[in-house]
Each structure stands twice: as C-alpha cells, then as structure tokens.
C-alpha cells in the first residue's frame, strides 16, 4: 500500500514536472510570485508600525495620531493612495515617507538627521521604525484608488520635474530611468520591466510598493526602490527624501492614477 502510494506520488510529481517544463520562464516566475502572496511577512511590519504610530514617543512624548497625511489630522485610511501632494504647513510637495518624517519631527520632536541617517534596514536585519511605519501607512490604503493630485502649482511642478528626471541620462552608463522603463515588454535578464510611462503598468508598479523582498528579507519602501534603481544606473547615492525622489514619485503616482493600491506587496 505504501509502495502504491509512493508510485502514485511519483507519477503526479513527474506529470507536474513536465507541465512545468512546458511553461515559459516568465510564467513560472509569475506562478512563483503568486505562491508568495499568501502570508506576506510585511503584515508583521504593518502591525508593528500600527503600534509605533499609536504610541506616545520621542522628546515630546506624543503619538503620531495627530499627523495630517493630507486627509486631515489623524486620518490614515486612504492617505498613502493620494500622496505625494502639496502641504501648506511645509509649503512643499511630500510623499508618504517625507510626510511621516515631518510628523515625527514636528509632533514627536525627533531630530530629522537622526531619522534619516539610516532609513533602510540591512539585508536580513530587523526593520527600521520608518520601514514598519511606512508598511502600516500603505496597508491602510489597500484597495483604495490611486489619486495623486495635480491641482496645486507645486504639484504640477513636481510632476513636470519628475518627468524630466525620469528621462535624465547621465553617468558612465548613460542610463536614465527611461532606459529600462519606457517600452513595452522589456526584460532585464528574466525580470520584467514595467513601462512606467503607460497607465496600466505604472498602476501595477505604483500599487505594489512598498514590498517585502524575499531575496533581502526586508520591507523595501518606495524611496528605497528609487535609491536602488539609481545605484544600478551608476549614479551617486539618491538622498533619502530628496526633492528629486519626491518629484519622481509624483510623476509615477500621477501616471498611475486610477489604479488600486495593493501595498505592501511581496516580491522575490
């Protein structure tokens, strides 16, 4: 009986193997990604982020519950889907991470330089507080339509500059963001490259960041995604929360408007 069961299992697994062999590599990667969707470790980051958000902390011993993310003080649901946007109190366009740090400084009294010194965790290390908080903020926008505003002149300027930065070729490789992300159906190795100038792929890409990267064992934020793209472009280091990063996120966000947030997602 045991042998019978073993034989049957072998037959099943052989059939599975031949079905796999008939699949294209891209399909296999898509299947692998789909299999990761269940049980995203970023859920833990979001839970830790929620606790951090609600806790009185910092020199002012205050929580972040009064933080205005653009929908009024204390309103977190859906806020990340509508950022970057212009904030009158800072007279600047801010993305999720810029606004979060702004609130940690103004409400809790943390020093900006301390918050921005090490925003990203090292591979396999404990997430930074910023990463946990960012995971929480995006999780609160899950399923919400992307609606990055362009009504304010500074929002339009950010979008226009972001577009120019997207096409800015420089460095020893002559690359720009557009070198990889402005044509349909392109791949680096087996990695699909979304055409971020087009609505549907821009929506899919914008909706999926931040993401838990299995290969790095960490939640990677949108700011990190841009920082690492510029590293691969052979540019100098993109500063955390820099104006160019916010402009680029505004450009991508506006291109993605109408999509549905699905972050934090999980990526290989």
């Amino acid at each position, binding site marked *: 009986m045991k042998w019978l069961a073993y034989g049957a299992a072998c037959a099943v697994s052989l059939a599975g193997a031949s079905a796999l062999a008939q699949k294209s590599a891209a399909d296999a990667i898509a299947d692998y990604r789909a299999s990761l969707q269940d049980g995203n470790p970023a859920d833990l980051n979001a839970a830790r982020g929620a606790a951090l958000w609600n806790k009185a902390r910092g020199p002012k011993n205050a929580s972040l519950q009064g933080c205005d993310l653009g929908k009024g003080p204390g309103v977190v649901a859906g806020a990340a889907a509508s950022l970057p946007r212009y904030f009158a109190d800072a007279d600047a366009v801010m993305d999720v991470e810029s606004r979060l740090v702004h609130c940690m400084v103004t409400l809790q009294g943390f020093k900006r330089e301390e918050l921005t010194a090490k925003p990203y965790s090292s591979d396999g290390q404990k997430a930074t507080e910023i990463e946990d908080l960012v995971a929480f903020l995006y999780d609160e926008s899950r399923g919400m339509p992307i609606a990055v505003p362009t009504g304010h*002149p500074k929002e339009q300027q950010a979008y226009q500059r972001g577009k120019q930065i997207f*096409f800015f*070729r*420089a460095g*020893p490789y*002559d690359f720009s963001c557009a070198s990889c992300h402005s044509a349909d*159906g392109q791949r680096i190795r087996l990695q699909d490259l979304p055409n971020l100038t087009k609505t549907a792929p821009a929506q899919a890409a914008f909706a999926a960041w931040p993401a838990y990267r299995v290969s790095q064992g960490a939640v990677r934020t949108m700011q990190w995604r841009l920082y690492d793209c510029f590293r691969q472009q052979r540019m100098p280091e993109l*500063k955390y929360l820099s104006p*160019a990063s916010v402009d680029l996120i505004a450009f991508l966000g506006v291109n993605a408007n109408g999509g549905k947030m699905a972050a934090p997602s999980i990526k290989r």
Partner: protein
Amino acid sequence: MKTNNTLILLGAAAIVAGCATMSAGPDVTEVIKASFQERGIAKLDRLEQTPLQKACSQADAAGKPLDAATASRLEQAALAAVKPPADGTYLGDWKEGEKIAQSGRGLQFNDTAQTVAGGNCYACHQLSKAEISFGNIGPSLYQYGKQRGVANPADPASAEIVKYTWGKLWNSHAYRACSPMPRFGDAGILTEVQLKHVMALLLDPQSPVNTP
C-alpha cells in the same frame, strides 16, 4: 511721461519674471544636484551631462526622436573617437568574454575602484543558447558572427564586420545616436583587453554564440 512708461514697462517685466519663476519652481538641474550625494567611487560629477546625454534626454522627454542632423552629428563625433586596439588584434578569448558577458559588477556606489567591471551583456541580449536568463532590451546576438558570414575573423573579408563590432562596443552611439547601450570603450567601462574577449565571444566561430 516717458519716465512713467519706462517704470510701467520695468514693473511689467518684473511681474512677468516673477510669474515665470513662480510657475516653473526650482530648476530640474538644481533639484538633481541637491538630491544626490557622492558615495565611494560614484562622485557627483556623474550628474553632469555630456552633450549627447543632454540631447538624448531632451528628445526622450519630448517623446520625439532626435532630428536627423543632430543625430548624424553625434554619430559622426562618436565614430571619430573610436579607438582601435593598439596592436591591431581585435579578438581575445571567448571564454573570458563569456564571463564578462555574465558579470553585472562595476561602477556602482557599492563597488570599489578595484572591482573588475563586467559587460552584463546578458542583461539585455541573448547570446549563447545555454544561457536562458537573458533580457530583450537589445536584439538577440545568438549566431552573431555566423549570420554575418564571419568564418574566419582574421580574414580580410571579415574586416568590415570586425571593425563595426568593435565600434559598436566602444561607443554604441557611433551607429545609433541615443542607443540605450553603454559606451563600453569610450566611457572606460571595459578595458581594451576585456573588449577583445567580448569581441571573441561575438565573432569567434568556436564561441557558443556561433555554434548551434
């Protein structure tokens, strides 16, 4: 009366200038300069665009190809600066070329000056049949030499293809301005010796690129 008119004109000019500043916001080059910091081998001078980079960026952002005259001028300048190998030998060892084609290291801020740079050819091109993990930003180069009739790269009949291939690797813009391919020779990404190895990968009849 005349003075008043001048004043009005000056005032109007100031308002126009003011509005222009207000509507444009900070200049994109200022924003870029303020947004990056040097790290390791990646210094800030990497943000200074060459005339070619500038022309290509502007054309890309406008969604239009370069005008024919500018493209031709850039291509000619790139071609004129191609440096042939000092000893006149164009081909090295395809086995070394394959390693260079596989490696994506070099010139990133987390690399060092001692990091041996790769060409990362497989990121964008199909090359050998055995490697199935290849990108498609560039055309397939499988059977590159064979398809171009290169039976013996040393044969004078192959000279034209050999020189073209060297030029394309040295500076891709020599044949197509605003190509997405890096200037492997011109920008000093690969050494002359490394370029010869990649040449062998592409043109040596024994290379896996040219065998079935």
